[in-house]
């Protein structure tokens, strides 16, 4: 005990020395945010819980997307591919072999990282950049969708159901409907994803990746292996996104080709990151917190409109139209995203 007591402050000091101030600050904020958010379900109505959980899934995806596209500078328009690989790996291993979703999650993350590295390697080898890179990743996601539709062992278009267990199980990651574990688990996963982001951004590979994003030629002339340090954020990004996919499957107990690889999955990963601020630690979270509940809030408002807007009641499509207008306005008028714009103002 005493040895530990003596060692701890030393170790802490060592850690402090190794971590740049920025990273330390981010980690402290993260801890604070997680603690505050852990108590969120206690103050919001129960009906808001599914929306909160969906928002957390968005946030994890956006944090993942941001690693590759924000910090790595490779605009992915096909993150559905990596989300889907994570989701299907978990679903398949669980239903075919009874593998615990926790293991499925890790295997899926690894597989997804491999797939992502392969796709990105091909795209980079053939020198695709900008819109071309985006369209290539999109095409891969589409191909995954089409291939899944033709895969017998993945149940083709029917998708895979996660069987309902008679009682709660930590090892099988299944709880009662409305259990708060379904909120806390993705919250912790999000915390891990953000921690991965912070560590990466302030690490040597992370610094290299950002240098390459800013100017690959200059980075290469400083001795940086461009391909290698581009693929590292890709791998991390895909792994994080796959974890979101695996959790998604466990929470919704179902995954189908469209839920896994549909175009909307890719945009779900992009929108929060862009709204919040690309290439920032907190942008994806803030973006998700705004965008995730937005459509539910608008829909809720229209379900119970104030008297002078009564005539709007029951107009289907209106909620999404309003959501679309808000989305457009945020993107057009906050060029660096919410967090990015705030940060810029503060700096000035």
């Amino acid at each position: 005990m005493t040895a530990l007591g003596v060692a701890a402050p030393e170790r802490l000091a060592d850690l402090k020395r190794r971590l740049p101030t920025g990273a330390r600050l981010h980690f402290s904020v993260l801890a604070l945010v997680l603690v505050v958010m852990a108590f969120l379900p206690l103050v919001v109505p129960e009906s808001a819980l599914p929306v909160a959980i969906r928002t957390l899934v968005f946030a994890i995806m956006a944090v993942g997307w941001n690693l590759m596209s924000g910090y790595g500078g490779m605009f992915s328009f096909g993150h559905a591919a990596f989300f889907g690989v994570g989701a299907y790996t978990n679903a398949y291993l669980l239903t075919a072999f009874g593998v615990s979703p926790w293991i499925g999650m890790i295997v899926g993350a690894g597989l997804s990282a491999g797939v992502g590295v392969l796709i990105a390697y091909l795209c980079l080898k053939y020198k695709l950049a900008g819109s071309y890179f985006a369209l290539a990743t999109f095409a891969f996601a589409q191909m995954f969708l089409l291939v899944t539709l033709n895969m017998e062992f993945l149940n083709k278009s029917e998708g895979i159901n996660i069987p309902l267990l008679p009682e709660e199980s930590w090892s099988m990651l299944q709880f009662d409907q409305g259990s708060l574990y379904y909120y806390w688990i993705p919250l912790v996963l999000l915390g891990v994803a953000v921690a991965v982001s912070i560590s990466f951004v302030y690490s040597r590979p992370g610094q290299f990746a950002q240098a390459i994003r800013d100017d690959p030629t200059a980075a290469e002339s400083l001795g940086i292996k461009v391909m290698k340090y581009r693929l590292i954020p890709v791998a991390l990004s895909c792994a994080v996104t796959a974890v979101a996919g695996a959790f998604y499957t466990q929470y919704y107990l179902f995954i189908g080709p469209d839920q896994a690889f549909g175009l909307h999955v890719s945009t779900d990963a992009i929108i929060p990151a862009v709204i919040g601020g690309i290439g920032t630690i907190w942008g994806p979270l803030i973006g998700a917190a705004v965008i995730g509940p937005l459509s539910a809030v608008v829909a809720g408002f229209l379900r119970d409109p104030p008297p002078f807007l009564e005539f709007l009641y029951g107009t289907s499509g209106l909620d999404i139209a309003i959501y679309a207008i808000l989305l457009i306005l945020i993107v057009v008028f906050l060029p660096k995203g919410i967090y990015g714009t705030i940060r810029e103002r503060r700096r000035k």
Partner: protein
Amino acid sequence: MKKHTLVVVAVAVALGMSGCSGTSNVAAGGDSVDSVTIGSIHPLSGSLSGVGGLMNAGAKMAVADINEAGGIESLGGATLVLNEGDSQGKAEIGQSEAQRLISEGAVALIGTYQSDVTQNVASVAERAKVPLVIDVAVDDKILEQGYSYSFRIQPDATSMGASGARSLIAMGEATGTEIDTVAYIHIEGAFGGSVFEAFKTEAEATGITVADEITYSGANFSDATTQVTQALASDPDVIVVTGYFPDNLLIAEAVNALKPDIKAVFGIASGAYDDNSFPAAAGEAASNILSANYHYSATSDRVADIRTRFEAANGESMETASMLSYQAVEVIAAALEESGSVDPEVLRDAISALSLTDPLLEFNGPIEFDENGQNINATVVVMQVQDGAVEQVFPTEIATKEAILPAFSR
């Protein structure tokens, strides 16, 4: 330590929440309540919003009709309230809408039109122990999970494929039309695939050859000429079709353009051919197309009255899907009446034990659910577009017009 406290707090809060949110749940056991909430989930936006809107309107009308007739008597005349959810056609939105509706006090759910969304909602219903009455959703698999809180009024894909085949054969015999080979065009995926498999098994058992199976992708289909030409290459007597509205329309138009020497186009579980907007949309191409599908009863006065009032109120023709939503509300209302309880678990047992006579659809008998929750008397009837209107033509007892078969004189 900290973790434990968190859990305790959370559990306490969760209990508190479920306690206060269910305004009607607590008043179980024949007590009189003011109102009972039913949650409905349909695609009110997105690509399926057309039919979703009609279904929602059907459910709304059922609620209004029941309330006008005095509400639920055994609950002291409690009125029904419909809490509407929009799935946007997405499974995960459907699921969170289901959770919202339940937490806002819905004692039963109806929905949802799409199989994947229904699948998700069914699992929510099962875990929350709230009955789900499926109005439309065709996939067999939904009820094969062993769920005890899901019930389905419409026939499933397999039984539609099989009874479609039986109807076709019977109609051929009745009209003296020789049907030896058919070619089948269907949408890729579980829906098209399982209807086709069931049809094939049934048809081949009676000696009909399924000469060709042509599938297409629903995600990208803007011309059916190739598929129809391909189907005709096997020289079939009948082309059988399963798919959704736009693809069905394209196929009918391609057949009309090619004017092949076949005896009929026969839709099974087809999205278009028995839809009242189809004759106008397809014009000449719609003429004499047959369709085996579940259908609102065209011979019942009660149905005629509902449809007239629906059209007056909504300005649109009430399609079968919409009638099924109406029917789903009636099923729940009947179970409420029967049990005199707003406890969802008691309600489930009541639905399970229900025998609802005078169904609004052409079924073989009253609505009764088997142990899987499938309505055992659900069946298909055959319709045909004649003179710009969808008519029931088979079985003959419920026919509004006589079947024209061979459908084409070429």
